[in-house]
C-alpha cells in the first residue's frame, strides 16, 4: 500500500510537472524568439550581404512582368511599356509561376475599383432618380467630383505632365513613385545612386580661393532617360555668385549623367536629383 501511494504521488507530481515544463519551454522559446527578433530589429545589417541574392530576384522579376501586360492591357497598354522593355535585358527564366500572381492581382484589384464604383453609383442614381430624392444625385455628383479631384491629385503627384496620361498611366506612375522601394528596385535605386554620386563627385571642383569659405548650395537637376540634362537650377543659393557659378559648371561638366534604370526615369525627369554642394 505504501508503495502504491508513493507511486500515485509520483504520478501526480509528474502530472503537475508536465504543464510546468511546458510553460518553462514556452518561455524559453519565447525568450529565444524575442532575442532573435530584437537582434533582427536593432542590429539589422545593411542589405549588402544580399548582393548574391540580388541576382535571384532579378531572375524572378521578368516572369512577374510577363503576366503583367495581360491585366493591364485590358485597360490601357501604357503602364506595361516600361516593363516590356525590361524583358529584353534579363533572360527570362520560367521558374517562378506562383509568385507573379501576387503583384498583378494587387494592381488588378486596385485599378478596377476606381472606375467600377463610378458606374455602379451612376446606375443606382439613375434608378433612384426615377423613384425620388434628388439628394442622392447630388451626393453622387459630389462623390464623382471628389474622385475626380483625387485622380487629379494623383496625376499631379505622379507629375507625368508631359504625356497626356490616362488614369491607368497615372496609376503606374504612382506605383513607381511610391514610398516603398524593396527588393530589386531598392537595389537598382541604390546602385544607381552610387553611380551618380561617383560620377558627379568626379567633376566637383572649386577654385582654391573659394574652397575655404564654408559655402553651401543645393541644386536640382532633372535628366531624361538617357541621362541628358533637362534642367538644372540652384534651389538653395550659397549667397556667393561665384560659388553658385561653380555649382552649375560642375553639373554641366557632369553631363551626360549615368543612364538611369527605367523605373526611375519618371522620378529623374520630374523630381530630379537634389545635389548638395557639399551637402
Amino acid at each position, binding site marked *: 500500500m505504501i508503495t502504491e501511494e508513493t507511486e500515485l504521488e509520483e504520478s501526480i507530481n509528474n502530472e503537475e510537472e508536465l504543464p510546468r515544463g511546458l510553460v518553462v519551454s514556452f518561455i524559453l522559446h519565447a525568450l529565444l524568439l524575442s532575442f532573435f527578433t530584437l537582434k533582427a530589429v536593432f542590429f539589422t545589417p545593411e542589405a549588402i550581404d544580399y548582393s548574391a541574392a540580388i541576382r535571384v530576384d532579378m531572375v524572378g522579376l521578368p516572369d512577374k512582368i510577363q503576366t503583367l501586360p495581360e491585366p493591364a492591357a485590358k485597360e490601357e497598354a501604357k503602364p506595361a511599356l516600361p516593363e516590356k522593355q525590361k524583358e529584353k535585358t534579363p533572360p527570362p527564366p520560367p521558374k517562378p509561376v506562383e509568385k507573379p500572381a501576387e503583384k498583378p492581382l494587387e494592381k488588378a484589384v486596385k485599378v478596377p475599383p476606381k472606375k467600377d464604383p463610378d458606374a455602379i453609383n451612376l446606375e443606382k442614381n439613375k434608378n433612384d432618380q426615377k423613384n425620388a430624392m434628388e439628394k442622392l444625385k447630388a451626393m453622387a455628383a459630389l462623390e464623382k467630383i471628389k474622385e475626380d479631384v483625387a485622380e487629379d491629385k494623383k496625376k499631379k503627384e505622379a507629375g507625368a505632365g508631359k504625356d497626356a496620361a490616362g488614369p491607368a498611366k497615372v496609376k503606374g506612375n504612382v506605383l513607381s513613385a511610391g514610398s516603398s522601394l524593396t527588393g530589386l528596385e531598392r537595389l537598382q535605386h541604390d546602385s544607381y545612386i552610387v553611380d551618380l554620386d561617383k560620377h558627379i563627385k568626379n567633376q566637383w571642383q*572649386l577654385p582654391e580661393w573659394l574652397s*575655404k569659405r564654408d559655402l553651401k548650395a543645393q541644386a536640382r537637376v532633372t535628366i531624361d532617360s538617357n541621362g541628358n540634362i533637362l534642367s538644372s537650377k540652384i534651389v538653395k543659393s550659397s549667397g556667393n555668385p561665384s560659388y553658385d557659378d561653380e555649382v552649375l559648371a560642375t553639373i554641366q561638366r557632369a553631363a551626360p549623367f549615368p543612364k538611369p534604370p527605367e523605373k526611375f526615369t519618371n522620378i529623374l525627369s520630374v523630381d530630379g536629383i537634389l545635389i548638395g554642394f557639399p551637402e
Partner: protein
Amino acid sequence: MRKTVLMLLSFLAFLSFSQQTLAQESNNGIYIKLGEAKTKKSLMAFPALQYAGSPTTTSKAQATGAEIFNTVTNDLTISSYFQLINSAAFLEEASKGLTPAPGNPNGFKYESWKALNADFLIKAAFSIVGDELTLETYTYHVPRASLVFGKKYQGKVSTARRMAHTFANDLLKELTGQTGPFLSRVVVASDLNGTGKIKEIVTMDWDGNNIDQVTNHKSICLSPAWSPDGKTIAYTSYIKRIGNKFRNADMVLLNLASGKRAPVSYRKGINSGASFDPDGKHIYLTISQGERPDIYKMTYDGKLVLKVTNGPAGAMNVEPAVSPDGSKVAFSSDRSGRAPMIYVMDANGNNVKRITFAGQFNSTPAWSPDGKKIAFAGQSEDHFDIFVMNSDGSDMKRLTSARKPNGKWAFNEDPTFSPDGRFVMYTSDRTGKNQIYISTVDGTEERRVTNDEANYYKPKWSSNLE
C-alpha cells in the same frame, strides 16, 4: 503565466510589424551630398603696372613699379591660390586703361583675357609725387566681367614693398575671407655670413626681404620667439655677465621698437626655448639649473610662477609650445625611454598625453594658429624631416624629403606656422647651407625663402603685424 506569455507574443508581433513598417519608410527621393570639392588654382593675369605720374619722373619711378609688381606677383604665386599667366601670352598691351572698354574708350577688353581663360585680371597703376607713392588697383573676375576689388593705396616711396604686401593681403581677404600672411615677419638666429660660429638674432619679412640684425652679442644667440603683439622678442644668448667666469645660456627680452633689452632668466645652466603665453603676461621656458631640464612658467620680469613639468626623474622636458588659446602646452620629452617624443599637457602641467609614437627622435612642436594642428621635426632614419599632424597625433603627414647635392639626406628642422595657418616654415640644409623654406601645410608645394650664404636656425613666424 498565460497572460505574460500572451503579452510576450503580442510584443513580438508588434516588433516584427514595426520592423516591416520601418523598412517601408525608405526614402525614395534622390539626394546626393558631394562633400569636399577638389581644388584647382585660378588663372590670374597681372600686366605690368602703369605709371600715372608726370613723364619726367618715369625713369626714376620704374624701379619702384617693378618692386611693387614683383612683390605682389611673389605673394600671389606663393599663396597657392593662383597661377599667374606668363605675360608673353597676353593679347593686350599693359598700357590699356584700368577700366573695361565700353565705358572707357581706351579701356581693356574682357575678351582679350577671356581668350586666355584668365579667371582674374589685376590692372594697376602707380604714381610718385615727391616722396609720396600712390598705388591704384582694380581686380576683375574675367568670366563674370565684373570688378571684385578696387582700392587705392598711398604712402612714402620707401614703403612700396609694404604697400604691395598690403594689397596682396587685402585681395586675399576679399576673395577667401581670410587675410593673407604677407605682412608678417620672421625672427631667426643666423650666422649672417655662413661661418657658423657667431649667431645673432635677425628679423626679416616672411619672404626673406628686409633683414634686420637685432642683436650684437658677438656670441651664440638661440631660439628666438615673438610676443603675441609682435613688439617684443625673447631669445637665449650665451652671455658672460660681470663677475661670472663662464658664459651662461641666459634668456633676454628685447623690445624691437626701442631696442631696449633685459635679461629675464639667468639661472645657472640653460634658460631657453621661450614660448609666449597669449595672455601677454607669461613666458614658458626650459630651465635646467644644472639638472635635467624642466618647463617653467615665468612672468615678463622673470618671476617663476609655476614649475609646469616635474620629472619623471632623469627625464628632460623641453621645447614648450603654448597653444594659441593658451590652454595647452606641447613639448618634447624623453620620459618614455631614450627617444624624445612629442607630448601635450594642460597649461598647468596636468593631463600629460604622449601624441607621437613613430620615429626615433621627435622634437620642436609648433601649433597652427587655429590650434588644430601640430608640426614637428621627426627623425626616422639619420635625418630630420618636417611633419604635420592633428593636435591629438592623428593624420600625420610628411612635408619634406630632400637630398643634398652629395646625395645624402638633408636635415629639415624647426617648423613654424604662418599666421593664416596655410604654410609651414622650416630650415633645410639641402643646399649645404641651412636656409629657410616654406611648404603648404599639406606638403604639396615647397619653396625656398632665403637665398644667400648665411645659415639660419629656429625661425619663428610672427602673427600679422601692423
